[in-house]
């Protein structure tokens, strides 16, 4: 200390200057205090809200959709628990690195993950979540959970997966669900204004009953409030370190269940029969009161694939398939009914007294109208036939003559009241009405006068007339019930979660055509009885076109038909249909009800490109009706079997052969 020469007074020089420092320090303290006052006291609650918004994330709890059950409570569409991997682009730290880690676990290409995230970030913004993969396996969930903490932006979420136990069977009827598209969002919110509210990422019904029942089965989504850190990772609110009055979650409320009129057993029997024969086309089975028992369309698709993000490859296969797997062919396609139309023409002819049930008509192999030849399906013709024979053997020439005698207006009036050319009124969307032409229709749609010759083609179900399978089933059912036109329906009841019935549909007779209809025509009981007998012979008579497909103990009544896919010259009509390329082959129809007297069930099959109504469609109709009787009236079948045993000794059962039924 001694070697430092200090001058005790020299520091006094500075004494006057300390006040500046005091002023600076005090001013700073005051300014900072004021600023803190402003931030913490004046803006405090507002900024507290901002900080809360930072950490509280609203997560939607999707409501489980209601189940679809069959008439006996068996499940047709159900829900399964599952997991999905979700990405939030905003929280991703290193996209490339993350993609490389995730790709092998999820079995995806790292590049594809990167592109998806980048595209979503660009299109939907950084906070919109991306469903990377749905329906994760246990193994995937386990492996993802291990890397979850080191992978900001990744989330493994519990979900409900819509499950369709019947898979392809009836897929067009039940429909499918998938994520709402950007285009649909505003449209649906407009459509369901005040009832349902849709948001991006919602799963909605896209077709069939899933779409139709959206309002009923959707339920109410819940909200869960979770705490996240700055990297989007969920941080438990139970962590004692963190404050937070946990905001009460709002539970999701389950959608209502729908009980359908479908009978799962019959649905499955129909599908087995149809697919065993490798048919394409459609099947519908309806109880005589209008309850749909089975409904399918083939080829089909697996709606389970849609529920778990369908691949674009599968999708393009589906929409480019020439046989239209997405189309509900029961109501969304119409075709020439071919010979299945003949019983309807017969009703008109009998009712208009153009023929009586005993009157014989000469039906040669070729019928000339003007100069033009109209062919029967059999070169030699049928000879003299009455109306029963004409229906049983499907005589073209007989019906040509009926067509001429009736004229298009009469045919139109009688056949319209059976429902042909109108929507049947079933609950499903996109039903086509079909066409039942008359001269006014032709003028309006084709701009031409009706030609006399067109009466002939109309009378055998070709030409302009087009019907859906559902319409033919309704028309035949009307014949079976002697005039009662029913409304088909597939939704029986809507039940809430407690099982309370919210809505119920009952059988409905739209009109009884034995009474005079607004267009001035009616069809009498007697007329129906004659035509029914003709149809009974189709299935049971010695020359009936569908006689090879019988059910022990139950008599069916029906009519086969062939819908020409293309117009062929006479040579081609007689040539072997099966030798043509499949897309050029005719469609086969068979519609039948059973029992032939007081029927309980009507079944229609459209077997596209199967060439014949009998071999193509009739066995399936038989199988479906048999399944119905086996389930609901097994005693009838048993008795029939007993009776057959005694008969069998006398005559061997003939082998079925494809017939050129005039169709």
């Amino acid at each position, binding site marked *: 200390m001694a070697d430092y020469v200090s001058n005790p007074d020299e520091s006094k*020089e500075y004494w006057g200057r300390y006040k500046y420092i005091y002023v600076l320090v005090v001013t700073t303290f005051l300014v900072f205090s004021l600023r803190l006052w402003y931030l913490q006291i004046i803006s405090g609650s507002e900024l507290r809200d901002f900080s809360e918004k930072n950490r509280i994330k609203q997560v939607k709890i999707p409501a489980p959709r209601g189940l679809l059950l069959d008439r006996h409570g068996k499940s047709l569409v159900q829900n399964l628990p599952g997991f999905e991997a979700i990405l939030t682009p905003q929280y991703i730290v290193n996209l490339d690195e993350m993609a490389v880690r995730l790709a092998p676990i999820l079995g995806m290409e790292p590049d594809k993950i990167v592109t998806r995230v980048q595209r979503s970030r660009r299109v939907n913004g950084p906070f919109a979540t991306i469903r990377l993969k749905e329906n994760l396996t246990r193994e995937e969930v386990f492996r993802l959970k291990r890397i979850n903490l080191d992978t900001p932006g990744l989330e493994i979420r519990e979900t409900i997966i819509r499950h369709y136990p019947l898979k392809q069977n009836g897929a067009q009827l039940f429909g499918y669900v998938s994520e709402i598209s950007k285009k649909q969002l505003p449209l649906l919110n407009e459509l369901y204004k005040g009832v349902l509210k849709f948001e991006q990422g919602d799963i909605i019904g896209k077709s069939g009953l899933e779409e139709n029942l959206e309002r009923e089965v959707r339920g109410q989504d819940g909200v869960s409030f979770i705490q996240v850190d700055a990297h989007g990772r969920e941080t438990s609110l139970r962590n004692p*370190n963190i404050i937070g009055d946990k905001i009460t979650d709002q539970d999701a409320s389950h959608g209502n269940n729908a009980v359908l009129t479908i009978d799962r057993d019959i649905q499955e029997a129909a599908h087995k029969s149809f697919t065993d024969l490798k048919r394409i086309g459609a099947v519908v089975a309806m109880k005589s009161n209008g309850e749909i028992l089975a409904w399918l369309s083939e080829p089909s698709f697996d709606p389970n694939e849609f529920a778990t993000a369908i691949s674009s490859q599968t999708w393009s296969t589906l929409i480019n398939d020439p046989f239209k797997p997405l189309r509900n062919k029961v109501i969304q396609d119409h075709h020439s009914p071919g010979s299945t139309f003949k019983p309807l023409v017969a009703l008109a002819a009998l009712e208009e007294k153009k023929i009586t049930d005993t009157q014989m008509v000469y039906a040669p192999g070729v019928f000339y109208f003007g100069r033009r030849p109209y062919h029967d399906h059999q070169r030699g013709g049928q000879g003299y036939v009455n109306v029963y024979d004409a229906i049983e053997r499907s005589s073209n020439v007989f019906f040509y003559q009926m067509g001429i005698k009736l004229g298009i207006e009469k045919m139109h009036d009688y056949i319209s009241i059976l429902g042909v050319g109108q929507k049947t009124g079933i609950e499903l969307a996109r039903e086509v009405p079909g066409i039942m032409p008359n001269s006014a229709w032709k003028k309006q749609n084709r701009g031409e006068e009706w030609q006399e010759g067109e009466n002939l083609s109309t009378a055998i179900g070709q030409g302009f007339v087009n019907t859906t399978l559902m319409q033919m089933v309704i028309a035949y059912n009307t014949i079976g019930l002697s005039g009662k036109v029913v409304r088909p329906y597939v939704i029986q009841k809507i039940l809430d979660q407690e099982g309370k019935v919210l809505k119920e549909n009952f059988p409905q007779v739209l009109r009884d055509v034995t009474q005079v209809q607004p267009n001035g025509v009616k069809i009498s009981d007697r007329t129906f009885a004659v035509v029914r007998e003709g149809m009974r012979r189709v299935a049971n008579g010695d020359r009936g076109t569908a006689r090879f497909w019988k059910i022990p103990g139950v008599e069916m009544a029906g009519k086969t038909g062939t819908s020409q896919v293309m117009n062929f010259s006479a040579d081609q009509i007689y040539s072997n249909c099966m030798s043509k390329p499949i897309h050029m082959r005719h469609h086969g129809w068979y519609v039948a009800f059973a029992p032939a007297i007081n029927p309980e069930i009507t079944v229609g099959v459209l077997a596209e490109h199967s060439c014949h109504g009998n071999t193509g469609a009739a066995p399936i109709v038989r199988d479906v009706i048999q399944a119905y009787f086996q389930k609901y009236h097994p005693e009838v079948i048993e008795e029939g079997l007993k009776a057959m045993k005694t008969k069998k000794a006398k005559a061997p059962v003939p082998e079925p052969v494809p017939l050129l039924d005039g169709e």
Partner: protein
Amino acid sequence: MDLSISLEEKTLVRRLDWNIILVILALNVIGLINLYSATHGPNSKEVESLFINQIVWLISGWSIFFISTLLDYAIVSRICYIIYFFNLLAILYVDFFGKIALGAQRWIDFGFFRYQPSETMKLALIMLMAKVLSQRNSMGQGMGIRELIAPLILVLIPFALIMKQPDLGTAMMIIAISGSMILFTKVKKHIIVGAIVLISISLPIAWEYILHDYQKNRVLTFLSPENDPRKTGYNALQSRYAVGSGQFFGKGFRKGTQSQLEFLPERHTDFIYSVLSEEHGFVGSITTIGLFCILFFLVLRIAYQARDKFGALIAVGVLSYIFWHMFVNVGMVIGLLPIVGVPLPLLSYGGSSMLTTMLGLGLISSVSFRRYLF
């Protein structure tokens, strides 16, 4: 002999400025409590060990404090050129071989300790400026250009080297600290006017040619953080939410969601005050800057009572060191100043800052310790 020793011990204890020690201890305790919270979030295992490190730095800091208290600060006036020279070498080394972090070269890595020479340069400069300035302005008329040349050169060399790293925050600190000391020593009025003119001309030029884009962004963001809340404005905005959401009493120890859930960036270093404000509210925030004010008043009293100009200037220098750090750091955290990477002395995590601060305070204590010796 016995008597003299006991007397000496008695005086030793008595001569210590216990007020300043208690205030520093209070700030240390606040700092540790707060640092514990900042490093023990639910997802921040990787920073938990920093709390123990800080305790080690604190113990080392207090050792340095007492050693420098007992040493006569006059020694400093003899070795300050050497300290300055070696510190310059260290900065030069960093400029060319240092660790790159956040786009700048700032550290020499010793394994257990990352030495940041620009941090110690602040103190080296305080010592050197105290020595140089104490010999100037003997007439009391204020320094003229000739007297200013030497101190200015001594400041500008480290300034330029630190700007090169680039570390704008530290460079500005060096200017602020030495500027304060020069102004305190008194400068002729026309030179001050001239300097102001010169600075207002050179600022736009510096903006255009010297500042890096990230530095410009920080200033622009400060002016309007809402413009880009997710990128450059993020820090400023999150800090404002943290401070404001603390309200009057705060959210409570380890209950600040902004810090615990990592919405606050750099929460154990530059934004430590946000953590404090969020968890302890207006009460805690005011208490802390109040303690700093008391510390400044105590240092001012020591400067006032210093036995010589050198001692007074050391006290004023260290005061301006702590003051400007607090000013810039808290100003930034509460949204009054742009985001600049400057630690808050005694509260922010960091060895260099802690040791430098404690050494500075130790020198002040030494000045205080020796005030009775003349």
